[in-house]
Each structure stands twice: as C-alpha cells, then as structure tokens.
C-alpha cells in the first residue's frame, strides 16, 4: 500500500531479442482469489459501484492492480470492463466507492488531472484527432507545455525550445511505431490499425506511469499484432505498468502477468493467466467450454477428421 516507487524486482529478462520474455510472478499475497492483496499495488479500488438506472454496470468490492506488471482485464461483453476503465480514469463518476493511484486518492479527481498524474488511457473506439497531422497528434500528448498557456502561447520565444525537444521525442516514438513516414499526413488518412498505434504512441508522449489500453488489438492485422505485443512488453521493461482490456485470449495468455476476470460488474476471478483460464467459473462465464476446439467443429461445418 505504500507509495514507494521502486518497482517489484521482476526476474531479470535475458537481453536476447525475440526470446520470449519471462512473466512477472509473485505479484500477490496469499491465495489468488478475487480481490487478493498485491505485494506492490499501483491502483487500489474499494467498493466502486456504478449504476445506469436499474442496471449495475460495475460493483467491485476490492481490486488491486500490481505495479510494473501487465494486467489483463477480461470478461464477457457488458461485464463492465470499459465502465471500470472510465471510472478509474475519471471519465465517469461512480455512485459509491474510493480508489487510489500510487497512494493518492482519485475520488472526484477530473480526468485531465488523472492523466497528469501519470495514468494515461486509450479508447476502445480509437480517438485519433483526424484533422491534425500525425506529428501534431503526437506533440499534443506531451505534458507541461508552457506554450499551452494562453499568454505564453502568444510569444513563440517562450515555447520554441521546448517544442523542439517534444518534436525530437515524437520522432523517436514514431520511428519505433513505424509511423515516421506518415508524420505529415492527417491522422484521418491512417488505417484503423495505424490509428491504434498512433493513439498508443501519443499516450506514451506523456511519460506515463500506468498505461491503460482499451482493446488494443481490436481490428489490428496479425502482423501488426505481433509488433503491438512487443511494444506493450517494452513498456513493462521500461518500468511502466500496463492494464488492458482484451478479448483476444492468445494475446492475454501471451503477455499478461496477471488476469482479472469480470462478469456482471463484479470481479469473479483473478490470477496468473494459465491458472485463471483453467478456472471453471471463468470458463462458464466467459471462455466457454469449447475454447480449444475449432469453431468449425462447434458449428458442425467442418470436422477435424476430414483434414488429412
């Protein structure tokens, strides 16, 4: 519960490129039940509840997000994952509950202040700023720009130097995300997958502590998926914490250190990915009994025996 900023010493990753990077283990204290305490939590939420009329979208008793690890939030459609995201980032206000980030209470803190504290998010429906160029999108992400104050903005001399360093940083990130050739284009001209990349790169411009990604893989082609996965793993290596919502179970298994399963607004299970996916409650509520079976066999349009 301390706001101590030293990350949990993760097992040293071998500096060999393309080698599978080991997962962080030993994140929790005691048995991995819903709401289990973490060794070094970055987010602690207590009794967070949000109702829309008669529908209780989120009703989380207690949940902790481990620091410097990749946590996946999974669950069926309508489980309240995105609503929880909105609540944690200040985009929505809960009816009850308290939650803290890095030891500081976030109750009632507006979204922009949450972002300034180092907790940035992306959106399920990508929000690229269409009529700004890719480079402008990136530069917008930087924090503490003196030129964003009305009167200082009037005098270029005040912000020009900072603008140069922001631009250099934006170039670096764009190169990393393979968007550097597009930097002068309007963001509206990017494909859906490129917009996802841009949104993630833009979020990184603010040097976040916690990156929250809402379905980063939705609509991204397989080749790009691989590079996105690498980027997310890089974030952890750079000391950031990642929390993401995703339906792609391969991705969850591949990169998540910890999985939290939500259903009907509640946390129903959590634990390391492989264990959680064996949990009968999770299989019932979300994965379904046939997750390892080809879709063709379930629908009866294709039989494994036909394959030579």
């Amino acid at each position, binding site marked *: 519960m301390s706001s101590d900023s030293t990350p949990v010493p993760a097992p040293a990753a071998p500096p060999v490129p393309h080698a599978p990077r080991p997962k962080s283990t030993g994140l929790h204290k005691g048995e991995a039940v819903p709401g289990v305490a973490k060794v070094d939590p970055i987010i602690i939420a207590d009794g967070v509840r949000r109702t829309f009329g008669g529908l209780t979208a989120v009703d989380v008793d207690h949940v902790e997000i481990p620091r410097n690890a990749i946590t996946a939030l999974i669950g069926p459609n309508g489980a309240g994952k995105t609503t929880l995201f909105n609540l944690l*980032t200040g*985009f929505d206000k809960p009816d009850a509950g308290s939650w803290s980030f890095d030891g500081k209470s976030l109750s009632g803190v*507006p*979204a*922009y*202040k949450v*972002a*300034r504290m180092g907790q*940035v*998010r*992306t*959106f399920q429906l990508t*929000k*690229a*700023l*269409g*009529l*700004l160029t890719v480079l*402008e*999108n990136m*530069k*917008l*992400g930087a*924090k503490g*720009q003196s*030129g*964003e*104050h*009305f009167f200082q*903005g*009037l*005098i*270029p001399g005040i*912000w020009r130097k900072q*603008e140069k360093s922001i631009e250099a940083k934006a170039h670096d990130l764009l190169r990393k995300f393979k968007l550097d050739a597009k930097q002068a284009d*309007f963001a*509206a*001209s990017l494909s859906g997958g490129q917009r996802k990349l841009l*949104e993630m790169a*833009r*979020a990184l*411009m*603010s040097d976040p502590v916690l990156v929250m990604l809402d379905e980063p893989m939705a609509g991204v082609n397989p080749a790009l998926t691989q590079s996105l996965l690498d980027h997310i793993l890089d974030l952890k290596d750079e000391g950031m914490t990642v929390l993401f919502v995703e339906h792609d179970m391969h991705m969850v298994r591949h990169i998540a250190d910890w999985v939290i399963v939500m259903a009907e607004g509640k946390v129903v299970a959590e634990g390391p990915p492989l264990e959680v996916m064996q949990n009968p409650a999770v299989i019932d509520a979300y994965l379904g009994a046939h997750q390892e079976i080809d879709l063709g066999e379930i629908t009866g349009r294709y039989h494994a025996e036909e394959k030579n």
Partner: protein
Amino acid sequence: MDWGQILSNSASFIIAPATIAYALAAVGLSVQFGYAGLLNMGIAGFMALGAYGYAISSITFGLPWYLCIVVAIAASVVYALILGIPTLRLRGDYLAIVTIAGAEVLRLLFLTSSFDQYTGSADGLTGYQGSFRDSNPFPRGSYGFGPWTMNENQAWVTVIGLVLLAIAVTIVFLLMRSPWGRVLKGIREDEDAVRALGKNVFAFKMQALVLGGIFGALGGVIYALPSSVNPGSYVTSLTFFVYTALLLGGAATIFGPVLGSVVFWVLQTFLGNVLPALAGIGILPVSSSQASTLRFILVGVALMLIVIFRPQGILGNKKELTFVK
C-alpha cells in the same frame, strides 16, 4: 441603370466600417467555431454587448472612448463566462441552443422599455460619438479616393477598426501556431482524447469562448461607431450573416474571416443595388422593394451552397475536405 454608381457603391464596402465590424466578429467566430469547434450561434449577442456597452458607458457614464471600448470588452467577457460555465461541460449542441437564446435575451433586454433611460429601448441610442470624434487626429476634410472617399469621422472609425482587426488577426495567427492552438484544434476533433492527454479541456474552451466573444464585442463597437445603435440590428440573422462571411472565407483559417466579410459585403451591396435597378427597368417581375429583399434570399442560398460544395471556404485547405465527417 447606372453601372458606375453600382460598382462604386459595391467597391466602397471593401473597407467600410460595417465590413471591418463583420470581419472582427467573424475572426472571433473562427476562434470559437473554426478552431475550437464551439457552435456559438449567438455572435449577434456579443456584438450587441459591444455596441451597447460602448454607447451606454459613453452616454450614461460619460467615459472617454477608449474606456468605453474597455467596458464593451469587459461586458463580453462576463457574458461569455455566464454562458460558458453551465454549458461548456455539456455536449456541443447545447452551447448552440444556449447562445442563440442568450443573444435573444440580450436583444429583448435592450429592447424593453423598462431600461429606456439607459438603452433607449426601441429607438436605440445615438450621439455617443463625441469623445471618439474629439480624439480624431484627422483635420476636417475629405480622405481617400474614388469609391473610398470619406470624411474625417469615417476615416477615423476606419483606421481604429483596421487597427483592432489587425491586432485580432495577429493574436489569432500567433495563437493558432502555438501549442495552445494545437490543443484547441484537438478539442475540436475529439475532446475526450484531449482530456485523456491531461489537458483541462473546459479551461481551453472557456478561453476560446472569451477570446472570440471579445472580438465579437469589438465588432459590435465598430458596427455602432459610425452612426447609431439599434436593437433591430442584433437579431439572429446577424449571426447567420457573420457565419456566411466566415464560411465563405474558411472557418479554420486566419484571413478567411476577413476575406469572407469583404466578399459578403461587396456582394450584398452589389445585389442590393443591382436587383432594384433590374426591377426598375422591368427585367425582374417584382417591385423594387421586393427586389432588395431578394438579396437576403440569395444570401441564404449562398450559405447553403458553400456548406454543401465548399465547406472549407475560399481559403480553406482542400485536403481537409476529404475527411469531412
């Protein structure tokens, strides 16, 4: 038909005070609508505040002309804050509803006889130019040439108007190439995305509303300075005329609002002269007063055609058109 007279009348509006007033208001609207995406449908209200703020502080309080301008600006700032605090947190359409209503409320307040001693109610206000004309450095005489010949008072209004317009355009130019302008354009595209990046969206929108409102009020001052203030001038159609000028030139451009205002007024005057003349010689089958009303119909048609066929305006970026949502 006296073509020479018609063309001269039309050309005179290239730098007439009314044109400068529209240009100032349109620059303000470009900040609000073009760059920040705030659908202010009540720019006429800001202009009314500018005009009445100037006239009342001159007549009732006897302030010198420059302090009258300060009062006009202060009134528009207060008005922008009152409008913005409840509505800027809501979705954009609400601002349009509130601003259109706010402008009407202001107009009716200026029109009602309850405040006749300050506002002159339906008669409006006249005779507030004393201090301004006393400060005129131009000696009595005639200035300019051809269609742009004016007396010393008109010349002084034009000069002050052009100075204010130059200041407004410079401020917008400097701001829109700064990080401040970048945030504003980001808000226009998607304010939640900008909020997620740690920007105080409400504060930026408020600053844009206030800045645009100040320019609108200055436009109102220049609109009123040559002659009189009349509550009938600040009706909703004034807002639509300023929008026409803005969209004509290009909503998200620096010089678009200025160019748009010039084109708007020159065309307005041209049609206002040509149509009655055509009716007079029997080409148009309407009376001459009907013919001069016809130009307002044409303004409406023009506004529709611009929005449909050239939404980016004369100076707008063609590339942006591809992505109009």
